[in-house]
């Protein structure tokens, strides 16, 4: 992990390069987090990957989270890793809920980190976050015709009826 000072240095450099890209930094329990604006996310990730002093070349995990009732509601986390220094950096992009049937959107980072392919599909599948420019954005773990975003906090457990032999005629559409 970069220490608290190192994190501020990274944040300062990023702010210098593009105004307003870093919204906040947080250093808690030994883990460093950059909270960034979702718009320039690709340039931030590219800079962290390519800048000779940073070299966070490895994306170890990409995942989404739903912070209902906080606003902005969604976040996409990028767990970056510098293998040379064995340092981790968490980049967190906050996404507001556009409301209605619209989905929150963010640029896909597959061209920067090809490993994000499956993981972005997973985030789309469970949270309904649309990754702009993803080559093949389909559901990955849920069935393709599934409706709803099951890991959002307002999606109830048991939101989908389970069909047993004694209820199969009562559950609508069981025969489809």
């Amino acid at each position: 992990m970069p220490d608290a000072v190192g994190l501020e240095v990274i944040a300062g450099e990023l702010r210098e390069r593009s105004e307003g890209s870093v919204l906040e930094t947080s250093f808690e329990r030994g883990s460093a987090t950059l909270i960034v604006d979702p718009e320039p996310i690709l340039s931030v990730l590219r800079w962290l990957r390519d800048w000779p002093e940073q070299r966070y070349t490895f994306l170890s995990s990409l995942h989404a989270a739903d912070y209902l009732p906080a606003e902005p509601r969604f976040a996409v986390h990028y767990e970056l890793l510098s293998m040379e220094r064995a340092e981790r950096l968490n980049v967190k992009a906050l996404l507001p809920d556009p409301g209605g049937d619209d989905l929150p959107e963010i640029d896909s980072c597959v061209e920067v980190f090809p490993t994000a392919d499956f993981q972005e599909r997973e985030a789309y599948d469970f949270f309904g976050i649309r990754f702009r420019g993803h080559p093949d954005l389909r559901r990955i773990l849920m069935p393709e015709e599934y409706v709803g975003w099951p890991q959002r906090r307002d999606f109830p457990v048991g939101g989908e009826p389970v069909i047993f032999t004694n209820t199969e005629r009562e559950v609508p559409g069981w025969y489809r």
Partner: protein
Amino acid sequence: MSETAVVDRTAEVMTINVGPHHPATHGVLRLLVQLEGEVVKDLKPIVGYVHTGIEKSCEEKAYWKVIPFVERMDYLAYYFNMEAFCGCVERLLEIEIPERAKYLRVIHMELNRLHSHLVWLGTSALDLGAISMFWYCFRERDSILDLFEMSSGQRMHTRYFQVGGVMEDIPLGFERKVRAFLEEMPSRIDQYEALLDRNEIFLRRTKGVGIVSRERLLELGVTGPLLRAAGEPWDLRKAEPTLCYGDLDFKVPVGTVGDGYDRYRVRLEEMRESVKLVGQALDGLPEGPHITDDRKVALPPRHELSTSMEALIHHFKLVTEGFRVPPGELYYATESPRGELGCFVVADGSAKPARVHIRDPSFVNLQMLRDMSLDGYLADLIQNLAMLDPILGGIDR
């Protein structure tokens, strides 16, 4: 120009399904393969057949009830799943676990690594036609499961790790049994090696097959033995030594070419290193408590319940409600037999996690299958899949 079109039979592309119910897919994995003759031209893995919504279910459970859930994701590396989750929660709570618990965890995790690699070796050799390997590997695997049964009462999905330490101290005679096993295991590994390393069929099917460059593997986020087989000495046990890995002496085996054979060699050497690690951890096992004495997190000892009112209250609160974790979020990774197994937990201050995400190495590593198999034969696809060692329970969660 003739009017009849000439059909080149070798250029005809055929799309077939491999799986989801095929013994060589190591679970319920479906591969949509484009074949030109017998050559793989394109490949798409389709997963999700055993998705059970574990991550969602975890949000409904108190922290200590989440442990048996996460264990069932990667069902061959249950100790690692537990360590990823418990380690993450311990860091969120900012508690240090006792030294003895660290050593006990390492002993079980390395035995688990042996167990996982044994299942991999047995089933992979089976895919390549060597059925006897399967029986030999499962014989040793069974003696490891006997050890797990002795320490925790369960053979698989032991729920042995607890937030703050381990559930129970090891029983009398456990050390003797483990040492007897460690005595025997190196010669067994030599036997596997002798069986496979001089097997013409095995060598021809693995050498030079499924090579992916180190750079490409890093781009694809591949970790674990697959990455090390391509020559990158990246092991979280060395790079970020948690528990007592910093005190133990072990080597990180790496390959040179990155083909199927290297992947097999690296895992075999890792088994030898794991045997050494368990022995060292047993030698260095310190005395002391096996779980933290923070009564807000760990259950009080049974005998205190009849004499101490506070213990009774703590026991009641922990069992009915569980402990609360201060708000925060953290990602914590361990080196599982398949690579970086990370756990991301969001705590909102209540007794239940607001989000649990497991970064499963099989899920990420599966993306390299296309690179491995493109322009190779269909038979090599089976070999590649075997050497990839995907666990579908972990991929689908």
